[in-house]
C-alpha cells in the first residue's frame, strides 16, 4: 500500500471514528458512500474538513467531491494531484 493511501485510510478511520476498522480492511476500490463503507452526507463534510487539515487540499464543490469520494483510490489520486509540492 502506498504511503499516501495508508495515510488517507488512517485519516478516514480517525475522522469518522470507525473504531475497530484497520486500514487494510478498507478496500482501495470500494465506494465510500452507499455500498462499501456506507458513509453519509455528514461524513462527507467531516472528510472534506479532514482532507483540508491533514493534506492541505480543498474539495471546492460537490462535483469535485463526487470525483474524489468514488473510492479510497480515487481520493488518494485526487489528493496527490492537488497537494502542494
Amino acid at each position, binding site marked *: 500500500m502506498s504511503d499516501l493511501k495508508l495515510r488517507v485510510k488512517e485519516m478516514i478511520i480517525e475522522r469518522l471514528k470507525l473504531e475497530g476498522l484497520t486500514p487494510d480492511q478498507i478496500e482501495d476500490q470500494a465506494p465510500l458512500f452507499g455500498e462499501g463503507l456506507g458513509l453519509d*452526507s*455528514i461524513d*462527507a*463534510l*467531516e472528510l472534506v474538513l479532514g482532507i*483540508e487539515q491533514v493534506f492541505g487540499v480543498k474539495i471546492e464543490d460537490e462535483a469535485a467531491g463526487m470525483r474524489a469520494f468514488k473510492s479510497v483510490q480515487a481520493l488518494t489520486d485526487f489528493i496527490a494531484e492537488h497537494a502542494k509540492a
Partner: protein
Amino acid sequence: MDILAHLPHRAPLLLVDRLLEREPGLRVVAEKLVTADEPYLLDHPAGGAQVPGPLLLEMLAQAGGFLEAETLHGASIFLAGVRDARFHAPAVPGDRLRLEVAAEGAFAGLMRLQCAATCEGRDLCTATLLVKRL
C-alpha cells in the same frame, strides 16, 4: 438586523434576542436573555429552574442561522448533528447568554460550526454543531 425577518422561529422557540457581531459566512455573536417566565425552564430534572442542555444547543444553532447572508424566511435551517457537546455550568433566569458561533467549513449544504455559550465570562457550553439548509 431584524431577527424576526431572518429566522423562521417564533415564541416560545425563538431563542435569539439580539445580534452583537456578524460576519456572514464566518462568525456570529448573538445574545439571549434567560427570563423566569420561559416555559422550558419548568420541570428540569436536575431541580431548580435552568435551561435544558438541548435548548442551549438550539440557541447556538439559531445564532448560526445568521451566518447566512440572506434571510432564512421561507427556508429552514436544521440542526443535523451534534459533536462533542460539553456542559460546564447551568444557564439560569437572569443570565445574559453570549452565543458565539464560528463556521469551520461547509460541503453540499451542510455546515460545521464551532460554538460556545458563556455568561459574563463563565463557560456554560461548548459544542460542534452540524446544520443543513433546506
